[in-house]
């Protein structure tokens, strides 16, 4: 509130500095927000593609495993799956997009060759191979989707934060600072006017006093010859 600020020149200078900084910050944040939105739109396109692929891969994998379960039996499919103890490895690194740290997920040992899936080749069928392959593809898609969607969420959060900061500067901080600046300027001008008026009054008062003094002196001077005259004539009775 403007009334809370002491209307001093020092405060005015401070507020002017803050306005300058805030205006520059506002400009930079606006540019950051626009940049983030552009990056976000790119990621959004990619995320939509990845989502589509993920959905297709999931349907394909489900179809393949359903066929394998139907033709080979659930027990055989479960058995083939149990033959593998080794899990895929996932490592996460990070990269920076306009100040936002997003994960970069690297996976290894997801897609496997025929001899790496654990089950024997000679006693199994192409149905199990195709179901395994479809699930490997699905897992790759899930990992990619996790990377893109996490980046998207982080970007979105950052855009939201930046937007809030821009709005806070634009609609709260800067208007308050402008108001304070204006308030102090008005107050200072008022004070200046008061000071001028006061000085003027003092001056007038001083001049008045001087004038009165001078008049008093003049009066005194006028009275003095009369007194002298009276003294020189003496008192007739003495």
């Amino acid at each position: 509130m403007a009334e809370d600020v002491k209307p001093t020149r020092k405060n005015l200078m401070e507020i002017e500095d803050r306005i300058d900084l805030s205006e520059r910050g506002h400009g930079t944040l606006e540019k950051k927000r626009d940049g983030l939105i552009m990056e976000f739109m790119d990621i959004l396109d990619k995320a939509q593609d990845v989502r589509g692929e993920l959905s297709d891969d999931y349907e394909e994998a489900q179809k393949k495993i359903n066929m394998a379960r139907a033709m080979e039996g659930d027990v055989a499919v479960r058995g083939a799956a149990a033959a593998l103890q080794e899990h895929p490895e996932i490592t996460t690194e990070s990269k920076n997009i306009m100040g936002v740290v997003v994960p970069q997920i690297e996976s290894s040992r997801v897609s496997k060759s025929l001899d790496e899936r654990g089950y024997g080749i000679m006693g199994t069928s192409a149905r199990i191979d195709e179901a395994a392959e479809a699930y490997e593809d699905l897992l790759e898609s899930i990992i990619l989707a996790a990377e893109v969607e996490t980046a998207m969420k982080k970007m979105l959060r950052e855009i939201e934060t930046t937007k809030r900061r821009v709005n806070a500067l634009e609609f709260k901080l800067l208007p308050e600072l402008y108001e304070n600046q204006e308030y102090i300027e008005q107050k200072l001008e008022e004070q200046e006017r008061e000071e001028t008026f006061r000085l003027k009054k003092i001056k007038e008062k001083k001049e008045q006093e001087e004038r009165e003094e001078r008049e008093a002196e003049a009066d005194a001077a006028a009275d003095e010859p009369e007194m002298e005259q009276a003294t020189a004539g003496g008192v007739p009775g003495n």
Partner: protein
Amino acid sequence: MSFGASNPEYVNGRVRSRRASLFADEDYRKLIRMGPSGIARFMEESEYEREINQLGTRFSGVDLIEYALNQNLAKHFDDLLDWSEGRLYDLIARYLRKFDVWNIKTIIRGVYTDTPADEIETDLIRAGEIDDATLDRALEADTVEDVVEIFNRTIFHDALESAYEEYEESGALVPLENALDREFYERLIEDLSGSYDLSFTEPQSGPEALYVEFLQAEIDFRNARNALRLARSGADLEPTEYYIEGGVLFDRSELSRLVTDYDELVDHIAESKRYGDRLSSALTRLREAESLIQFEHALDAALLEYSDTLSSIYPVSVSAVLSYILAKEREVENIRAIARGREVGLSESEIEEELVIL
């Protein structure tokens, strides 16, 4: 190999009555229109009544159907081994050892992944030659090494033991599983080569010749499947390691050469006198399609065609028994395919086209 007195007349007599209780084509057509619970009810009123009632408290839905089918299959095949004697026993056991391989693999996988014994037990199909006591002991084993040791009295022990070293080095089950499958396929036709010239591309006469021809087809089709899978996968694998002796379609060096050229491999199968015509439509689809599944489907259908001829030509022989085994397996596969297909929402036509082999 057992050379005692054989009893094909007795076994075939029993098999004929069992064959009569198999589902007919119209039963499948009814099943295709039912949901999983309807299928279970239908099974409850059929040959599968005992298994459905027995397992009904532990399982439900399609799992109940699948476990009931497996248990029923095991019971029937176990009976076949009980009834048969001498050479007939030996010939039947050769084929049914595929369930021993299944059970050993299931136990090894379970122990490898620390699965509780009762969970592994439900996945066993006790239709092979290995006795229940040995399987139960293996279920309680703590390590893969112990499992290998427990099967020391079976024909698979040497193969398992020699693959165990590789398993220890790699930590993967592939060598053990491949060793089991190879042992099964190579023993399928072992010793029979003395009686029949396996290099012949044309079948010879007699019930056992027909039986041998079927086993050769089984081996050839397995080699063809594996060769096509290796060719498609693009993995840097040595094809000869996956070659099974005993077939007539490829020899080891041929397979090694063909795996590198997918089209030539398909041409080779198409040009085969024995299988070319049988598989021509599937091979045409295979050239065009991305997936091997249709081709495998065609191979399964071609094997079943063999099984149909097996029973009609020599009705009182091992061929007729084998034909029944295949028909029973087909029944189990079809019912399971229908139930699973219905469970996942496949349409009647999809189930009929893609899954069921009538």
